[in-house]
């Protein structure tokens, strides 16, 4: 599909331009600044809806393709385009950002225009990461994205924010520089940074293993996978609500996207050879981190660990395909795990974002994230309680919510490969239910915990709007995931073919 105007460039640069405008407006123009932020993020969302509408879901090829020369000396191009994997992630990004802006409307007291500006710039860069078809452009945006996030956690975060944000930055930076070395290596070999060319570049097994490892470090940190996940709980706990939402809903998806766009198609043989490693790490994340989540005292930390466990499903779904082919000898079923991984990414974006917003609602009122400080919130905040229970159920994977679809597909795919994989993966359903419902029980239900809880005000209109929109999305995706699956299908089928081909 092709429009006569560069829709993807607009999607990338409109929020960035609005962010810069906000910085120029400065703190004195807060009254206008807020509305600029809201208008820009809503306009971006509207454009992305248009992108979805015009998207042709019958083809796996890149759509809305744009190409401009960029750096002749490195043969790097400004190339944008989307397929069935990146388009839903872009829509997720543009969907979440206005909610973050609304959620921060009055909650941010310190330099609010800079806060909104940081989120808008971040939004543009994240859309760019999903839309970039040139590895150098991808890398530049991937790294540039760290800067606004670093500032968001560091300026508007909690007491240990400096530690958390520096850890976040250095972890992800270290992960990415190895990816850079791998990309340069492939460029020197093939003479191009175009992702399509890199996917077609023949590589020996040894090269593939090294490149795969470099990518693994970069993406595993971002996902994050056990054992390089330790930055995430810190970052989440210290980040302001909006930062946690973006981090959980979108930034973690970059890792999953990286596996699908880089690791699997560029180094298929190494991925096939090393899939046991990824499956082991994913299952460890799912089971072990599930137990870790169970014992958390801090609500944000609990959701952070639950995010790690849920992202374990994404990596499991992505790499289980090789095992399915090995076990069944046919390619048809292999796509199921990838389908599940993609649905899980979108669903986790909605659910974890919503849960962080719920915790933000409580935190704004009580200035505490400790589970022990709450109890019986439903008595004073019935509407909030209803939302919280819904999102908790979605997090636990209740059928009818979006959380169910992704986990179910991945577990089903795991069954095709190996009973024990599926067994371990299914453990998460129990664990997930345990830690989420226990959280809900302790925070929402029961008798009113203390005087401060007794004085809580229920959701105001703005908060209800944000959570309501997310609730609709979670239910819609849970009840009727077909539109999403249809959009992805051709791209995932093509990806499976690429994975099964050898590049040796």
């Amino acid at each position: 599909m092709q429009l006569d105007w560069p829709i993807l460039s607009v999607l990338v640069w409109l929020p960035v331009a609005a962010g810069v405008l906000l910085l120029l407006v400065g703190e004195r123009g807060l009254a206008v600044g807020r509305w600029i932020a809201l208008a820009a993020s809503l306009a971006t969302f509207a454009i992305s809806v248009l992108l979805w509408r015009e998207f042709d879901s019958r083809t796996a090829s890149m759509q809305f393709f744009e190409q401009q020369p960029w750096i002749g000396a490195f043969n790097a191009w400004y190339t944008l385009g989307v397929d069935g994997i990146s388009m839903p992630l872009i829509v997720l990004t543009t969907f979440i950002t206005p909610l973050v802006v609304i959620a921060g409307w009055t909650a941010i007291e310190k330099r609010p225009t800079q806060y909104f500006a940081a989120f808008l710039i971040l939004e543009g860069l994240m859309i760019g990461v999903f839309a970039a078809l040139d590895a150098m452009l991808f890398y530049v945006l991937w790294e540039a994205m760290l800067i606004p996030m670093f500032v968001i956690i560091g300026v508007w975060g909690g007491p240990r924010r400096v530690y958390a944000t520096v850890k976040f930055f250095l972890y992800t930076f270290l992960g990415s520089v190895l990816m850079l070395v791998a990309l340069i290596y492939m460029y020197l070999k093939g003479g191009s940074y175009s992702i399509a060319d890199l996917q077609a570049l023949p590589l020996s097994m040894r090269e593939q293993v090294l490149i795969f490892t470099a990518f693994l470090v970069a993406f595993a940190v971002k996902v994050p996978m056990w054992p390089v996940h330790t930055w995430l709980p810190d970052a989440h706990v210290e980040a302001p609500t909006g930062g946690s939402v973006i981090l959980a809903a979108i930034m973690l998806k970059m890792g999953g996207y990286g596996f699908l766009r880089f690791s699997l198609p560029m180094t298929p043989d190494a991925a096939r050879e090393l899939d046991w490693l990824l499956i082991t790490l994913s299952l460890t994340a799912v089971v072990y981190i599930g137990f870790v989540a169970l014992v958390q005292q801090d609500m944000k930390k609990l959701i952070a660990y639950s995010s790690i466990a849920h992202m374990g499903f994404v990596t499991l779904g992505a790499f289980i395909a090789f095992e399915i082919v090995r076990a069944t000898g046919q390619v048809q079923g292999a796509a199921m795990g990838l389908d599940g991984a993609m649905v899980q990414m979108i669903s986790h974006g909605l659910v974890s974002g919503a849960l962080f917003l719920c915790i933000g609602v409580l935190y704004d009122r009580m200035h505490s994230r400790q589970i022990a400080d709450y109890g019986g919130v439903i008595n004073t905040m019935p509407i909030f309680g209803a939302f919280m229970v819904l999102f908790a159920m979605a997090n636990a994977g209740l059928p009818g919510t979006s959380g169910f679809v992704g986990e179910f597909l991945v577990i089903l795919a795991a069954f095709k490969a190996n009973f024990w994989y599926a067994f371990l993966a299914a453990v998460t359903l129990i664990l997930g239910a345990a830690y989420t419902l226990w959280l809900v029980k302790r925070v929402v239900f029961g008798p009113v915990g203390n005087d401060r809880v007794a004085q809580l005000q229920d959701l105001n209109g703005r908060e209800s709007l944000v959570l309501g929109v997310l609730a609709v999305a979670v239910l819609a995706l849970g009840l009727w995931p077909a539109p999403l699956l249809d959009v992805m299908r051709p791209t995932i089928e093509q990806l499976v073919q690429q994975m099964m081909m050898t590049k040796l």
Partner: protein
Amino acid sequence: MNPASITRLDLVLAAPELFVLAATCVVLLVDLFLTERTRWLTFVLSLLTLAGASWLTTVTGFSERTVGWHGTYVADPLSSLLKIVAYGAVAVAFLYGHGYLQVRRILKGEYYVLGLFALLGIMVLVSANSLVTLYLGVELLALSLYALVAFNRESGIAAEAAIKYFVLGSIASGALLYGMSIIYGVTGSLELGVISNAALQMPAGQIGLLFGLAFIVVGVAFKFGAVPFHTWVPDVYHGAPTPVTLFLAAAPKLGSFALAFRLLAEGLGAVHATGWQDMITMVAVLSIIVGNVVAIAQTNIKRMLAYSTISHVGFILLGILAGTSQGYSAALYYTITYVIMSVGGFGMVILLSRKGFEADSLEDFKGLNARNPWFAAVMLMLMFSMAGVPPFVGFWAKLAVIQAVLNVGSLWLAIVAVALSVVGAYYYLRVVKLMYFDEPTDEAALQGGGGAMRIVLSLNGLAVLALGLYPGLLLELCARVIP
């Protein structure tokens, strides 16, 4: 040399140098008759000198390598580019320094005169085609810098820095000269082209050549400030008045690059693989490690930037040690971007300082975002650029160098370089942390520097972003001027 044998070509070839020499003498003389109130004239004349030199360099620019003055002098696209960047760096240093010196009543004409002589040294250096010319440039530059460092007579710490710099610098110059004399003895010529041919004829591992080479590498490493010849860098950067530090950190690095390129690549390229590659590898890796690690422990921003310079020098040397034209152009690109970032960084220190207060402690950057969001953003861009985070220009410089290193098959060097740039990111992040995450302890409005400086400093920060978003032109320029 018989004066009659100077041709017209020779004069055209050296026109910028001759002009700068003459103009500097005029500045020196005019300054004698000026009082403190009319000293702005010196400043203006110095800037005019730089403008005139840029014009001359542009119009006499040689698109091909042209040798004159009996083979001792060369003009090529590389020398034109380096000279023009040097004019810019010196002009910015003069501009940033003007207000600072005026407020402290140490605005002496010598600052400009010595600065212009140092520039002349750089120009001679970048156009040198023989060992003697090279040495002449090195010494003219070094002597001017020694004096510049000591130029605030009241300051004990500056005098100490100048003495350290002078003593160590003289030893290094001695080593360089000794190495040159041995190379002359072995190859029988002072001219770089002849040396290059002679070295090609010699068997690999010719002991005299390697012996001389070792001393030359010592000299080059010292001028760059690379480990283990770096000990002067933090003390001098710290002790010198900030405008001098700014001067020192910018344009002379272009001279050092030229010194390395002319001597090692053009003169002794034949012993690259069998001689200096390993030596430079060691120096480069050590510089990157020591620079980045020790910078973490600094509390003074001038010292921190000094160690950061050492690590940047390590990256420049990485490009040089690749020994390919890709590597040299990457190193050149790195040097130019480093100069842009470095003048910006020290410019910020000047901007934050005011009369009776030196903003040279890291703590002085606390809460800058609350005091002045725009210049906090400029510093943020400079810091992330130095750390090598895209989309700023420092990233492309590191990328170019790493690409050059990978292209000659040194995977481990590339990995060491990127891993240590992560270590380096830590101390740059700390500056951002102080500016953005902490509340100001010092609420005074920024006073350092006048309107012109603020505009140029803003442009300086934007250049880091603009060159990072669209690095193509400068990269291609750097690739084109290296044969």
